[in-house]
């Protein structure tokens, strides 16, 4: 029996509410938010999953509940086995999960990124600031309701804004997205191009 399945079976007995999670590759479990830190500590200390490989946020889009999920990947460096742990945030409007920085210091920046991109607050995190976008940025860019091109926003440095009269703007998406579609063109001699070339800066989008 692989180490991960072993650990999951034991985890179900130790923490209430742990359930199997459909997965195509590694064994995976859903863990309730309340038991997250205990479950992670159990996997780390009792079953040798000593390395936190990744912390990823998921937005299942508006109208879906639970909307936000955080997925953790754990690796056992002694048994070379992975397990995936997922925890749903109970509140869809202001998602929250307990931080695992007490178990792995490496979770610090991962959780900051998930907070920055999805707005998931990790309670007990020692320094929950934005990590990629600047402090004071009002949005969470990887949420489904946020447009890829961005929205008009003030830049952080007031002096530079006054001098240059420039702010963060919604990026021009004329004809976008700009992708090299597989199968349509020869990938070796084609550059990414606009999906819809019927409109540009001078010619408005038909029907818009």
């Amino acid at each position, binding site marked *: 029996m692989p180490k991960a399945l072993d650990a999951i079976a034991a985890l179900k007995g130790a923490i209430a509410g742990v359930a199997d999670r459909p997965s195509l590759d590694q064994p995976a479990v859903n863990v309730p938010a309340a038991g997250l830190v205990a479950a992670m500590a159990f996997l780390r200390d009792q079953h040798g999953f000593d390395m936190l490989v990744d912390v990823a946020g998921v937005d299942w889009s508006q109208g879906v509940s639970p909307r936000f999920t955080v997925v953790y990947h754990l690796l056992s460096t002694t048994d070379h086995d992975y397990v995936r742990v997922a925890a749903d945030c109970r509140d869809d409007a202001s998602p929250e999960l307990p931080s695992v920085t007490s178990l792995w210091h490496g979770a610090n920046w991962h959780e900051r990124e998930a907070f920055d991109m999805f707005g998931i607050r990790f309670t007990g995190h020692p320094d929950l600031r934005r990590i*990629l*976008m*600047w402090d004071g940025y009002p*949005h969470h*860019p990887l949420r489904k309701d*946020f*447009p*890829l*091109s*961005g*929205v008009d926003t003030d*830049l*952080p*440095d007031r002096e*530079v804004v006054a*001098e*240059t009269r*420039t702010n*963060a*703007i*919604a*990026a*021009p*998406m004329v004809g*976008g*997205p*700009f992708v090299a579609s597989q199968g349509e063109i020869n990938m070796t001699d084609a550059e*990414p191009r606009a999906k819809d070339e019927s409109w540009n800066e001078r010619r408005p989008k038909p029907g818009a």
Partner: protein
Amino acid sequence: MCGFCPNSTTVSANSELTYDSKIEGDVIVTRADAVINWIRSNSMWPMPMGLACCAIELMAVAASRFDIARFGAEVMRFSPKQADCMIVSGTVTYKMSSAVRRIYDQMAEPKWVIAMGACASTGGMYRSYAVLQGVDRILPVDVYVSGCPPRPEALLDAVIKLQEKVKRERSFSKLNTA
């Protein structure tokens, strides 16, 4: 014998078109603009604003194979006070943009800007919430270089183009009219 200056010796007509120190002494007559621009354009110290993969090409330009020293621009200065030309090589994110502008403000006049590559020129393929859509939104750019990233030769060409531009500038005569 010249009647106006009794001490001078007779000089035969100079058939040479070039400067001859034996005849004219240690004096060259030219325009101040030409001299100043000649000095400026041939010792243009770059401020390497390396922000992404274009900076790798920028390093190649400074190395022996392409050798930006041939154009007098090999002295990369990481202090803006000592630099003349900011080479913005890479993707300028909004978060970085205020730092880029501040470094430009700290450079002493006269100063020039080369926008190297698609990202610095227009935002490039990053039509995104995080990337400044062209560094010319915050800086006065003198030369744009296309490419993703540009070949080192393209950046050398940009340096030559910038030198040509500097040589056309009114550097000294502007002071009189201002």
